[in-house]
């Protein structure tokens, strides 16, 4: 009789092993079922009122004069204090000094370059540089063009924005803002967010423009009605055409990068939360796929059929990882769709929570990443199962590494929690994150790499041991 014993044959044999035992098939189904079920339950409760909160913030110090009809304003920003990454210093044309009045502004920021922004919803990036910088706004009817220059001679247009509600007589001048510093600290049983005002300062010179008259400047600190404890009063001083402006707050809204929306839930990660329960079935599957060979003695039959042991274990890992990946991908897609639908019903809607589709980059990364997380975890479990050779012992070891930290972390200090989420296999769950949070421990792919390192070490040791030991 002729046969073949290539790697393909071993792969096929291992696949047959996986699908012909009820317990392993059950584990695959349980992975899907638990993931989808837990996501469904978790997203059926909880809601947000983020869309009932304010939709913009309009707080800054404004040094201005009237600008009637079309015209130009130019200024040179000599220096800017690095009070916040999103501190802003530049020139603005605004319908009036009232809170919420339409505007167009061009500004420099310490960390995010030159920006042309308008009406709390439009944000155009210019060059990446900082101060010193020349800035210019040119109004033509409702349209305002923004320019920047490093020397005041050669100008580069950043863009043009349309400010529909700008009256013929508007206010134009210099502005400075600096958003409050928000800190989240852990307290017993939860997080507490604390804010404190910051104060930005910038120096301008060479301020010129159509119909601007020296000495006729008006100072206004723009504030919402009732004020804001997180923004200080601003002020300005002029000396021989050199202006020092001090301001506090931010000018932003949905669509502007510096905007801090009132809700910061990660709706993608939340809809994939079921994975944290589904992973238990994956651990059981991975461990069983390894230990059952030793428990039943079929490992000898296996090695009699393929004495090349490395090939056998690699085939096992590929079949297991591939199957879990497909099951995990299916579960993640279903969980994501159900989760998004449920959360929309509970207030997670635009503009606070824009709709996320399956194919959006971060969502796609989180979904495929969740499937990868489960697949790599399965291989890690297989490795531990092969090393320990006892089902219960191996499951306990893996769950101790994966589940216990998740239970312990929330009751520990923020610092301890960060390190747990960085160094244990749970780090892999970072791949599900699509928003930045104060307690982010590790970047998405780096987190998955931590889990992969665990899997590689366990798998490598299992391989070494399997080759060395008598079967």
């Amino acid at each position, binding site marked *: 009789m*002729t046969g*073949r014993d290539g790697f393909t044959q071993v792969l096929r044999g291992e696949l047959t092993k996986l699908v012909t*035992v009820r317990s392993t098939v059950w584990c695959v189904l349980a992975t899907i079922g638990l993931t989808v079920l837990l996501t469904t339950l978790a997203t059926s409760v909880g809601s947000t009122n983020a869309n009932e909160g304010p939709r913009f913030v309009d707080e800054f110090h404004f040094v201005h004069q009237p600008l009637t009809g079309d015209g130009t304003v130019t200024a040179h920003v000599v220096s800017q204090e690095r009070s916040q990454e999103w501190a802003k210093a530049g020139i603005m044309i605004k319908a009036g000094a009232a809170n919420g009045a339409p505007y167009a502004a061009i500004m420099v920021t310490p960390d995010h370059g030159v920006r042309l922004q308008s009406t709390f919803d439009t944000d155009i990036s210019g060059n990446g540089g900082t101060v010193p910088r020349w800035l210019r706004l040119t109004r033509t009817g409702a349209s305002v063009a923004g320019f920047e220059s490093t020397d005041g001679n050669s100008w580069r247009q950043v863009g043009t924005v349309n400010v529909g509600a700008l009256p013929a007589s508007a206010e134009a001048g210099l502005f400075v803002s600096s958003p409050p510093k928000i800190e989240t600290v852990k307290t017993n049983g939860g997080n507490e967010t604390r804010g404190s005002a910051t104060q930005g300062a910038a120096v301008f010179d060479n301020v010129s423009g159509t119909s601007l008259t020296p000495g006729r400047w008006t100072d206004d600190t723009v504030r919402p009605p009732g004020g804001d404890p997180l923004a200080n009063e601003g002020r300005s001083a002029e000396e021989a055409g050199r202006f020092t402006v001090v301001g506090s707050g931010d000018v932003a809204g949905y669509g502007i990068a510096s905007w801090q929306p009132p809700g910061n839930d990660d709706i993608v990660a939340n809809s994939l939360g079921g994975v944290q329960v589904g992973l238990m079935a994956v651990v059981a599957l991975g461990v069983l796929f390894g230990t*059952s060979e030793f428990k039943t003695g079929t490992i*000898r039959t296996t090695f*009699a*059929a393929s004495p090349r042991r490395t090939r056998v274990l690699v085939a096992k890992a590929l079949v297991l990882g591939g199957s879990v990946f497909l099951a995990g991908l299916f579960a993640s897609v279903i969980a994501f769709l159900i989760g998004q639908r449920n959360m929309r019903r509970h207030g997670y809607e635009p503009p606070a929570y824009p709709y996320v589709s399956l194919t959006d980059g971060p969502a796609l990364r989180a979904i495929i990443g969740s499937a990868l997380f489960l697949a790599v975890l399965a291989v890690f479990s297989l490795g531990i199962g092969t090393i320990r050779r006892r089902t219960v012992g191996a499951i306990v070891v893996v769950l101790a590494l994966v589940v216990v930290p998740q239970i312990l972390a929330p009751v520990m200090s923020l610092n301890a929690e960060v390190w747990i989420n960085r160094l244990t296999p749970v780090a892999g769950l970072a791949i599900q994150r699509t928003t930045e949070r104060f307690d982010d421990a590790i970047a998405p792919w780096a987190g998955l790499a931590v889990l992969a390192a665990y899997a590689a070490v366990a798998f490598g040791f299992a391989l070494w041991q399997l080759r060395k030991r*008598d079967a």
Partner: protein
Amino acid sequence: MDATIEVRGLRKTYGSVVAVDELSFTVAPGQVTGFVGPNGAGKSTTMRMVLGLDAPDAGTALVGGRPYRDIPVPLTALGALLDAGAVHPGRRARDHLLWLAHYNGLPARRVDEVLELVGLATVARRRAGGFSLGMRQRLGIAAALLGDPPVLMFDEPVNGLDPEGIVWIRGLLRRLAGEGRAILVSSHLMGELEGTADHLVVIGRGRLIADTTVRELLAAASGDRVVLRTSDRSGAMSVLANAGATVAATDRDRVTVSGLPSEQVVALLTQQGLPFSEVAAHRASLEEAYMELTRDTVEFSGAGQEGER
């Protein structure tokens, strides 16, 4: 490729225990070689080393002239039944053979053929967990036959089989040998191999005790003894002893005589007018011959389990 197993100077120790010691023998094609020894003698260890499962401390085991690990499609070169219990209880009998077939690229129809061959076709879709030991033995034999190999190795295949199964497996072993295959069958009971084995490899405490044909072993164990039945036991004993024979009373009316051929015993008794009802040349059973051989090497006296590694 020669259908043989060649074991040369094989040695394996577990800690301070020597399981197999300088063992050499050859399993030739076209015959059934019985591999006999008491529990713990090292039979299973030897078989595992032949399969490359355990690494020997010294020596070599070759199948068809090469180490098992170097054989390209192993199941088509050597079929082995090591442990009938080594089946996942949750897997159907047919599926157990199917993954094994896939491992060596053998066609699925071969799975149905061997199931038919061992008489498990009707239970092919039942889970192995519900199988009796006898059914598992048959499943293990089916697995060994899957690749239609020229060399077969069975470790205690008769264990757990009912009388009908024992008759069946003896017939199967004879038939496989008749097809020119080399067969190695282990047993801790020599009697199980009577009428089946052509050749015997007897080991005790890991060492080779005998490597011989069944015919030679029986002849050696039988010696030239004569069994005599007589109503005058003491008279017969003194007459025969005076004639130079060694005489031993084995029963009330039975005497075993050695040192005199049976014709001379009859002549002496007739001459003295002593009554006798039976004179027969003694023929040892294989079991007796084996007991004789292994008397000094029984590892576990009493009812020992098959606890060898």
